[in-house]
């Protein structure tokens, strides 16, 4: 297949996935910048694209995002954004409001957050997560298990300290 055709197929099939990955972690404009950078790199490295290109592309997108801001900033921004959207999209009695979970997630390390969200949002297998993060599959399985436990513990603490954790918290009344 011609190189250009291969590239166009790769782009057509996966650019939306990369955009969604980036959009979850950045604003719309930055997400599109990330897509551009990832696929420019992919064009140059087209001969290295593996059979399952998704983890490879997401790994590059992760690298591009990491270089744009420090890791801790990125994760703090992500949690802030989740809080913001939960708050903005919910009515005062909205049972779907899950601020407690966002707070619990925010209490985890950046590594734990990243692992959990790659599985939850990108719906990657542990093998794919391992490829994205450049880790061994076994390492990912262990870390994922521990991250999940830590999230469950944090969530339990959150629910104990805030009885109405799934409701609107007092400081939200400021708006």
């Amino acid at each position, binding site marked *: 297949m011609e*190189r250009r055709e291969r590239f*166009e197929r790769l*782009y*057509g*099939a*996966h*650019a*939306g996935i990369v*955009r*969604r990955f980036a*959009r*979850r972690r950045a*604003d*719309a*404009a*930055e997400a*599109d*910048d990330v*897509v*551009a*950078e990832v*696929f*420019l*790199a992919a*064009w*140059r*490295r087209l001969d*290295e694209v593996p059979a399952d290109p998704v983890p490879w592309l997401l790994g*590059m997108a992760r*690298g*591009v995002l990491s*270089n*744009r801001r420090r890791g801790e900033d990125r994760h703090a921004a992500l*949690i*802030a*954004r989740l*809080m*913001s*959207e*939960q*708050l*903005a*999209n919910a009515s005062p009695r909205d049972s779907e409001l899950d601020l407690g*979970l*966002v*707070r619990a997630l*925010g*209490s985890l390390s950046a590594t734990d957050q990243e692992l*959990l*969200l790659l599985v*939850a*949002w990108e719906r990657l297998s542990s093998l794919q997560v391992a490829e994205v993060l450049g880790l061994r599959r076994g390492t990912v399985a262990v870390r994922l298990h521990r991250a*999940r436990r830590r*999230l*469950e513990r944090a*969530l*339990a603490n959150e629910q104990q300290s805030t009885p109405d954790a799934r409701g609107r918290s007092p*400081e*939200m009344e400021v*708006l």
Partner: protein
Amino acid sequence: MDDVIERLRRLDPVPVPLAAPPMGELLGRLDERAEALLDATGGTQDSANHGRRTTRRSRSRSARHHTPVLLAVGTSILIAALALVLIQPKRPAAPTTPPGGTPPGASGPPAFPNLTGHQRKQLVYVMKADGTTSRRDRACAPVPGLIGDPGRKPSLSQGSPTASILATIGTLRRPETPADRLPPRKIWDGPNSTPRTYRYGTYPPVTGIYARYIRYARHRDGANYYLVPAQNVNLRTPVPARCYHEQVTALRQELPQIPHRLTPGIFALQATYLDYERRSTEPYPGVCLSALNSTGNGDGASCYADSDIETGHTLSSGAPGGVPVVYGLAPDGVRSVTFYYKGRYPGNPLTVLVIDNVFVLHDPSDRLPSDGFPTKLVWHAANGHVIKTITWT
């Protein structure tokens, strides 16, 4: 307790699949058409590009990759073809009829001059000097323009848009109403902080927004569409004048490493390049189309110069209201827009009405291509006459 992974899934801020950005914007977003020309030069592209990208954009690991020279030379023609597609991929071809209602003399970003194959090889070294300068002097690394970046505060103007923009976009000429106010944006600064409302969160970060002329155009599929005219919609910011002199110095220093056959005329090419770079930062007026949901979030804004509106280069795709849509801006006189998708809707093109200069296409059957862009777009007048046919190569 619910499985935490399932609960995390429900927090997903982007629950629906997103269309890929138009491939034509790939390099446009990098703000440098010359990037594509650099690709077109093949061979030594990575070494030169490395300097540029690491200083201007990011330190992507991919930039460290080195394509074998022979392979790159062998594929350079192919790459050049791709580059040509990427440089102006979504620019429409010549219209079948003259545009209706668009005054002459439209302004916009400059075009990069056509280069010979020899000049493209020279350009590698000219851009390498640019990269060297950016590394040595951080003020010479342009700040990328990010539409929708809440950290970049726009400026407002109490003036009025240019006559040509007012003549082209009738919605801007109607009286202001309370509905025209852009919604505030709620931002939560962190788990332990108080949520705050940022007025500027929904303004595109352009210069001289004509605040009195912001107009709400329409609602469709969960998003509100606003027209935001501004004095300058060019997001490229100027660099200090010294940077251009420093680039000449850098090229002079790198001259011993440049093949002798490429040195004649290389400074003349650099002058052309620097002139293009300088002109690329000059301001030009335009209109931004902001697609926002009720919280002030959404797709941010896409900004168009006069010349973009004139040529019909005003399409965007995204999911501002939660569903994938393709949307754009059309000048006065365009009543409907028909999208043609090759092989997807044979004999059954999709037509949408233009309301207050804005059109939005949402395909519930989700059969649009990943970037949402059609192969052909036709603007129709109210009487059904074709005003303009826009095709993409």
